[in-house]
C-alpha cells in the first residue's frame, strides 16, 4: 500500500540520484575537456614536427612499423551493478609464465641504463598514476625493468628515425597523457548509463505511487513537456472547442444585427 511517506522517501531517493547523475555528467564534461586539450596540444606538436621534418617527410602512416605491439592497453573490471571500470594497463610486463621466451630475448639492463630514454620517465609515471591493484602480479622491480627495456626497444618514436624533431616526442607525451582521461571518461559513461536506468525505474515507481494516491502533479519528470492549459482547449482541425464556438456565435449575432440595421435604414 502506497503512503505519502513512502512517496516522499522515493522522491528523496530520486533527487539524490539525479544529483549524483549530474555530478557524473560534470565529471564527463571535465574529462572531455581534458582529452580535447591533450589532443589539441598533441596535434599542434605533431604539425610542428611535420613542419620541421628533415627532407619534408610526413610523420604518418607510411612510417608505421607493421610489427608493432601494444605497450599500453586497458584493464576492465565490472562490479555487481554492471558498472564497468576501465583502467590503463601496461602491456609491456606480461606475466612471466605466459611468455617465457620474451624474457630471454631482452637485452641486459645495463645497455638500457647507459642510454636513458626520455619516454621511460613518462611511462613509469603513467603506470604509477593508475594505481590499480589488478595489474599482473609481478615483482615491482622486475616489472619496472621490463617496462624500461620494452620501451627502449619498442618505443613507437623509433619508427620515425633518429633525426626526428623534438616536438614529435612532445606530441607523444600529449597523447600518452590523454589516455588516463579516456579511461576515466569511458568508466564515467558506464556509470552514467547505470544511473539513467535507475532514474527511469524510480520515476516509473513514483508515477505509479502518485496514481495510487490520486496525486496529479506534473513536474515534467517523465520527459514530456507540461501541457499548456490554453492549448488543451484548442483542437487541431476536427471539432471546435467551446470557446471557439462561442466566438463564432457572437460573430454571427453581430452580422445579423448589422443586417437588421441596414434593412431598417432601407425601409426608412
Amino acid at each position, binding site marked *: 500500500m502506497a503512503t505519502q511517506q513512502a512517496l516522499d522517501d522515493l522522491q528523496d531517493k530520486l533527487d539524490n540520484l539525479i544529483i549524483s547523475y549530474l555530478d557524473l555528467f560534470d565529471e564527463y564534461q571535465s574529462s572531455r575537456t581534458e582529452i580535447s586539450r591533450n*589532443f589539441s596540444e598533441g596535434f599542434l606538436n605533431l604539425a610542428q614536427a611535420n613542419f620541421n621534418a628533415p627532407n619534408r617527410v610526413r610523420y604518418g*602512416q607510411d612510417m608505421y612499423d607493421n610489427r608493432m605491439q601494444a605497450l599500453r592497453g586497458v584493464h576492465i573490471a565490472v562490479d555487481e551493478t554492471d558498472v*564497468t571500470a576501465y583502467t590503463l594497463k601496461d602491456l609491456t610486463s606480461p606475466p612471466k609464465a605466459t611468455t617465457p621466451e620474451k624474457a630471454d630475448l631482452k637485452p641486459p639492463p645495463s645497455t638500457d641504463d647507459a642510454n636513458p630514454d626520455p619516454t621511460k620517465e613518462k611511462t613509469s609515471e603513467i603506470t604509477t598514476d593508475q594505481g590499480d591493484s589488478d595489474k599482473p602480479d609481478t615483482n615491482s622491480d622486475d616489472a619496472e625493468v621490463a617496462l624500461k627495456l620494452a620501451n627502449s626497444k619498442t618505443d613507437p618514436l623509433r619508427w620515425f628515425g633518429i633525426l626526428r624533431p623534438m616536438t614529435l616526442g612532445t606530441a607523444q607525451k600529449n597523447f600518452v597523457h590523454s589516455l588516463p582521461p579516456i579511461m576515466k571518461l569511458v568508466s564515467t559513461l558506464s556509470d552514467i548509463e547505470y544511473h539513467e536506468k535507475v532514474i527511469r525505474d524510480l520515476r516509473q515507481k513514483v508515477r505509479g505511487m502518485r496514481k495510487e494516491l490520486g496525486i496529479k502533479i506534473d513536474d515534467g519528470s517523465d520527459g514530456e513537456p507540461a501541457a499548456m492549459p490554453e492549448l488543451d482547449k484548442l483542437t487541431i482541425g476536427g471539432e471546435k472547442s467551446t470557446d471557439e464556438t462561442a466566438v463564432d456565435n457572437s460573430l454571427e449575432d453581430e452580422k445579423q444585427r448589422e443586417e437588421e440595421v441596414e434593412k431598417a435604414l432601407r425601409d426608412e
Partner: protein
Amino acid sequence: MAAPSSYKDRNFLAVIGDEDTVTGLLLAGIGHVTTGANATRNFLVVDPKTEVDKIEKAFDEMTSRKDIGILLINQHVAERIRYKIDMYTAAFPAVLEIPSKDHPYDPEKDSVLKRVKKLFGE
C-alpha cells in the same frame, strides 16, 4: 552482471580516425598488429576518400573482436556511420567518440548530451 569471460581478454584499445589521430595514439603505444598468417591491425586511417563501406567493415571487425576493450573513433568519422554507431548496443568494446584536428569536439553531436536532454525533457 557481465560474465568475466566476456571482458577479461579485452586488453587493447582500437582506433578509427584520421592520420594525425591514429599517429598520435600509436605514438602513445596502443597500436597492435597480431602475429600469424592473417595479421590484423587495431587501427584504421580514414581520409576523405575512404569509402563508407570500408569504415563500416572496420567498425564491424573491431567491435566483433574479443581482444578490444575500447574503440576510439573520430567524431566526424562516426558521423559517416552514425546509424551503425546508434545501433551498436553491446557492452564491450565500449565505443568512444574523440575529437580530431580539423573537427573539434562538438557537444551537439554528442550522444550522451542528447540522452541527458531527453532524460530531463528538453
